[in-house]
């Protein structure tokens, strides 16, 4: 069976959940082979988890330079493997860094690039959810290899024991004139809350929250549900919450199991970033707020009394 390459998404050896989703998806297309690009010792930390989620092979492309250049080490390692194993597909996480690797790899190997897939079948037919979930589009690469960027949170992770056989691959020397050198790396550490695009539950606040201080109502509910915190553009523009938590057309697209919208009217801009959530709960004072049109359960009322009450109820049930 053909090997399907999965670029392992990790931050300094800490795995991101999306990697396991990609291994799950890769199994439909062939034999999953994980590719670890990192500093020496990275693969050793990740190998067990990769094998437990179906990696038959783990290609190890380790070098000190792996973190010193922007996307080039990943593109180089993957391009060499594409040449060698002619995979039907290469899966890469659809974050900012991953899409850059994917786009460059597609150019270098002259492969079709299926960006931001939420589903793929055994015939390499991919599904995109575009314009914030307003449309689904089916497409396929017409080339031998499809480069796929995979949207986090799209499918259920399956555990599936793989052999996880490690193989070191040669890391090509970096061409300085064509590469961008990186220093002072500061990965965002999300604290104790899950990352917004990876979370199973998102609790988001909008203009109705009223102030930065009041956002602790949103945070408290989020923490009771082990949820990520999101914010609407109106809330971010008003300075209530930092930009990186913005959900919507000009922010993040999320698709969690549960999305709770507090004081968010539900403008088309916002819905574009969250309407593919499996279950949507909304609290808003305005009974005409458009968010209720897509909410599975809506409560018309004051979020400052409803949210704390919900936090308490959740607490009772989890203790």
């Amino acid at each position, binding site marked *: 069976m053909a090997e399907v390459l999965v670029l392992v998404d990790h*931050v300094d050896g800490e795995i991101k959940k999306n990697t396991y989703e990609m291994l799950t998806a890769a199994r439909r297309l062939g034999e999953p082979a994980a590719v670890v690009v990192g500093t020496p010792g990275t693969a050793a930390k990740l190998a067990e988890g990769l094998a437990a989620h179906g990696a038959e092979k783990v290609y190890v492309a380790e070098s000190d330079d792996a973190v010193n250049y922007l*996307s080039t080490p990943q*593109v180089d390692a993957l391009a060499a493997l594409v040449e060698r194993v002619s995979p039907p597909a290469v899966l890469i996480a659809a*974050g*900012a*860094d991953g899409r*850059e690797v994917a*786009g*460059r790899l597609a*150019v270098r190997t*002259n492969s*079709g*690039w*299926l*960006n931001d897939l939420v589903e793929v079948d055994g015939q390499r*037919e991919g599904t995109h*959810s575009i314009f914030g*979930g307003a*449309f*689904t*589009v*089916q*497409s396929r690469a017409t080339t031998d290899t499809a480069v796929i960027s995979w949207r986090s949170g799209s499918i259920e992770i399956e555990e599936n024991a793989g052999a996880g056989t490690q193989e070191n691959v040669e890391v090509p020397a970096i061409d300085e*004139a*064509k590469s*961008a*050198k*990186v*220093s*002072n*790396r*500061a*990965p*965002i550490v999300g604290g104790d809350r899950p990352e917004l695009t990876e979370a199973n539950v998102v609790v988001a606040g909008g203009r109705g929250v009223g102030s930065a201080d009041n956002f602790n109502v949103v945070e408290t509910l989020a923490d009771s549900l082990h949820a990520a915190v999101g914010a609407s553009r109106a809330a971010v523009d008003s300075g209530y919450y930092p930009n*990186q938590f913005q959900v919507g*057309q000009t922010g*993040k697209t999320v698709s969690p199991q549960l999305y709770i919208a507090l004081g968010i009217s539900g403008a*088309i*801009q916002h819905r574009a970033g969250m*309407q593919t959530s499996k*279950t949507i*709960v909304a*609290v808003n004072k305005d*009974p005409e707020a458009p968010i*209720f*049109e897509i*909410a*599975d*359960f*809506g*409560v*018309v009322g004051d979020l400052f*009394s*409803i949210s*704390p*009450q*919900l936090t308490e*109820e*959740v607490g009772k*049930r989890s203790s």
Partner: protein
Amino acid sequence: MNIVVLIKQVPDTWSERTLSDSDKTLDRASSDAVLDEINERAVEEALKIKEAGDAEVTVLTVGPDRATDAIRKALSMGADKAVHVNDEAIHGSDAVTTAKVLAKAVGTVGDVDLVLAGNEATDGRSGAMAGMLGEILGWPSLTHANSLTVENGTASVKRETDEGTCDVTASLPAVVSVGEKINEPRYPSFKGIMAAKKKPVSALGISDLGLEAGEVGLAGSLVQVDSFAPRPPKSGGQKVEDEGDGGQKIAEFLVGQKLI
């Protein structure tokens, strides 16, 4: 210094966007078109470099006739000239093919030192065009810049993404994509608007770029779109008035859905 700024006209994100039934591409005629906000920041950054020293700023766009509006806006901000690649054959090009067209078009501008672009368009959202263009040109790409310094043949940026921040440096020629925080673009002045009318815009077709029709557009693309469908509208579910038990009601609903 010779700077090229990539600009793009996109459907306004506040208007309804759809796809065309006939060829499954973005229906650009059905929605309002605007110069993508992020492109204005790329233009602004080029103008800052020009004002600090000596540079010629060329804006480059690939798009239909009405992309002229985006070009005029950039020229009225202060860019010197424009290249408009306008060819029906390009319609439907995928990201890789678009990158190839852009690379050829950059080649028509002469010895370019720096290409500036927005980090992500609001329509295609591939977010990787700078990297792809750099890959084709054989130049380094410095992406998601929230600050840019160019001196002594080196570009340095502070890069910021959702994943973190870092400093990035590379030698010129290079491609830089700018993020939301890099600057506040200027408004065109009346003088700028008048001057823009006299600035040269060269219109090019694919043959001017040395490309054949089969290499671009739907025919040249490496991805084919098989079908699309509007997502079935999500219907609202229950809506209740809070009677002092709103939080409890939600908790009951979540228990019923096995979510807590």
